[in-house]
């Protein structure tokens, strides 16, 4: 620092005076050199504790949203960072976790049900009701046609092998449990999840 201090002292001598006088002469006020600190973007955010759902470390994350969940307000998630309380992650995140915001807000997020008709070259928006109804119809037709109550040896098997399902290993236990309950209720056996691969 010494270097600059001495220089500054030099300036003090003539410079200051000259500067001010020249400015006065020109009739301009000097620009104030105010700090450039950006507004603290977390002020007033709604903070929600969550978990990253990429890998199996299960890091704690804090999700920051604008809005207070008031009935007339649609909250807007604008920042995600690590939860310092979490015993494993202690606030840190990997590049995927640190980028969660862009996953939540990705342009590739789907917004409404769509169908691609046989042989068609495009998506077509449909209502949830139509989607559920059509899918249920497909499934029932196949189940009724191909459900096996007894195998060739005459064993009671009661299984449905011609419609299968892959479950999501990023979904919650509650989703998984609900999915499993339904799948077996239908007699489905061609049923797997990412744990298989």
């Amino acid at each position, binding site marked *: 620092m010494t270097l600059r201090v001495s220089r500054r002292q030099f300036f003090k001598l003539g410079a200051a005076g000259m500067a001010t006088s020249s400015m006065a002469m020109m009739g301009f006020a000097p620009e104030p050199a105010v700090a450039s600190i950006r507004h603290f973007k977390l002020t007033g955010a709604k903070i929600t504790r969550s978990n990253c759902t990429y890998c199996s470390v299960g890091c704690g994350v804090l999700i920051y949203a604008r809005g207070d969940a008031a009935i007339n307000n649609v909250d807007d998630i604008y920042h995600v960072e690590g939860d310092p309380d979490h015993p494993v992650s202690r606030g840190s995140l990997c590049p995927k976790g640190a980028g969660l915001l862009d996953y939540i807000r990705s342009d590739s997020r789907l917004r409404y049900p769509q169908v691609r008709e046989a042989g068609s070259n495009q*998506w077509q928006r449909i209502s949830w009701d139509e989607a559920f109804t059509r899918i249920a119809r497909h499934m029932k037709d196949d189940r009724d046609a191909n459900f096996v109550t007894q195998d060739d040896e005459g*064993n009671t098997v009661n299984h449905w092998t011609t419609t*299968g399902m892959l479950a999501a290993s990023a979904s919650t236990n509650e989703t998984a449990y609900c999915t499993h309950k339904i799948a077996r209720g239908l007699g489905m056996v061609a049923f797997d999840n*990412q744990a298989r691969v």
Partner: protein
Amino acid sequence: MTNHWVDIRNADLIIGMGGNPAEAHPVGFRWVMEAREHNDARLVVVDPRFTRTAAVADYFAEIRTGTDIAFLGGLIHYLIESGRFQRDYVLAYTDASLIVREEFGFEDGLFTGYDADSGEYEMESWQYEYDDEGHALRDETLEHPRCVFQLMRQHFSRYTLDVVSSVCGTPRDKIQHVWDMAAETAAPDKTMTFLYALGWTQHSIGSQIIRTAAMVQLLLGNMGMRGGGVNALRGHSNIQGLTDLGLLSDQLPGYLTLPDADEQEYEDFILERARPPLVPGEVSYWRYYERFHVSLMKAWYGDAASEDNDWCYDWLPKMGEDLYDILHTFERMHQGEITGYLCQGFNPLAAFPHKAKVTEALSRLKFLVVIDPLRTETAEFWMNHGEYHDVDPAAIDTEVFRLPTTAFAEEDGTIVNSSRWLQWFWQAGPPPGEAKPDTAILAGIFLRLQRLYQEEGGAFPDPILNLHWPYRRPEEPTPEELAREYNGWALEDVFDENRNLVVRAGEQLEDFGFLRADGSTACGCWIFAGCWTEAGNQMIRRDNSDPYGTGQTLGWAWSWPGNRRILYNRASARPDGTPWAATKAVVWWDGERWVGNDVPDFPEDSTPGMTQGPFLMNQTGRGQLFARDRMNEGPFPEHYEPFETPIASNPLHPDSPLAKNNPAARVFPQDRENFGTFEEFPHAATSYRLTEHFHYWTMHNRLNAITQPEKFVEIGEALARELGIEKGDRVRVSSKRGHIDAVAVVTKRIRSLQVAGHTVHQVGIPLHWGFLGETRKAHLTNTLTPSVGDANTQTPEYKSFLVRVDKL
């Protein structure tokens, strides 16, 4: 994980093998760094590539992909011959002393009972020798020629340093160095942990690689210890939970299984699973199987499940095949035998091997339902994406539904991390557009099906019409309702053996000890019992205090089973109940009861005097060095070459063609035709993840796209010189099943290896990037991978296959 993330910091030696934790689990990897800094631990990496983990490791040894059994088998050989194993532990806590049937044998790389035609083993001889009570004979001296210890010693005697070096391509000195480091943890106060992931599972011999590691840990006395264990770093955020909840073709929640077609009688079904102890006095906890099963059926079918109908036994689908795994299903789909398919947050076109086959298979579906928060390649498999996915939409008659679902930030619920912690998280914002939670989507489909069956009737409607659906809003069950259901509750008052009332009807269960086989309890997943008790939701607990400084944090979330953080922790103490070492103590006997820094992982009333083994789920109560009939390719691990191997034969069995590859692996004829040979495809390839990306999701995120924007393959300098490739050149990587184009990253981090006298070049192929999203468009890596799986799990062999690299 048998242990947990934070516990890694208690290790003295960490071996990163069959995984790349720094790359795939950076935050969990923090505890490796802590172990190095605060526990003076060493980190060793054994990998085909000098990885990001190797970048901060104390020692690195290169290895040929798919040869880990040789490396670890050699270690077992070394430990036994040099006597550097923890004898007391092995004697007390493993089946080393148990005696095996005389008929058992191993010849020309095959165990006894192999049927070459069916490609399967008859496992009769793979058993202990039993006395009249059905208890295994033992020899505490470990001298009996047919005791497990001696058989194991004999089996691995072939795995000498020279053999291992020529199989793995690892220099002898490096192998010896790693073996010595491992051997040091045979000391009772030293522990080693294995951190592995899909680098071990995704081989045709994957399960046996992991078993070999487990055997090493048993020999070194590192199971149940702080900083020990065999730790699977699971790939996805809730892949542990989905496994626990049994979303696999042959499973039911809590590692219960579906009946096989020939198990027509309910009693036989239970008897087969409720296995008695093979050693006198052991717990053999599966003996209570029926309690778990009946409670599950009550949770699913409510009053409809009664003793009279064997708790709806026939409503459960029975297995017509060993497995309806994904390779099997896509084979049938390819044959046109599948009508419809639902993909929930799963992208098979990108994730499954042999993309061309998957594309054809999907094209033969009548309907495909994709439930996902994001656009996926699978949902657009019918769409032409130019050179990256060249199909004719007009020729594809599959009706495809794409249903938007919520992402984690937009829902409540729990995920189970690799430490088996069930962690509850909360919704932070609204879903985009009309997106719905998966539960609402599945309920929506199911309720319509139910109505159709009510109105029209149809094939076997009973389980559909009677599925227990007590949710306040049937069209959208809440996470709270579902969590309470899989925890389990009492349907009637529950009494203990002395007729004391222990749980009132309607109350949530404290743990699986209260489950009953008489239909008085309902429980959707017995191992989760205790996560939502009368005291409320245990998974939201956020007390991160660590009173013992062991990193257990018992007050954070809830860990199955029964909030235990380290499995088999009984093994952390000697048979007499005193810790092997104070620094590694987890639980110990203080004279009256078990105390310690973790929940004892065995019956509280099991006094040291009872000498019950710590591995209470096993019939022997001991760690199984001898797998008996539980592994399809043999009770001891043996090295077999990958189905696409860069060498002509299995160096261990050059003259035994049957023993070249896993003899018990299932290969479909068409897939076999699609295997390449090393003459045509000389380079050994392995596929893997990068830390900047997560599979095929993050290519949709600008932030991640920026950090790793374009598909590349990693090539060693030697191979690059051979092919005249400079870094940054575009190359074409071809296998028998197709090709991908990518940028060449030429690196010192991949060295060519000397294997059985040949030079083998390995090629690294990251699996990310596709033809959607923010990153540069690319071919899918799984265009190249072969469609063959592990003989037990059918997990595809993504990690070892053959390619040819050409400069473009």
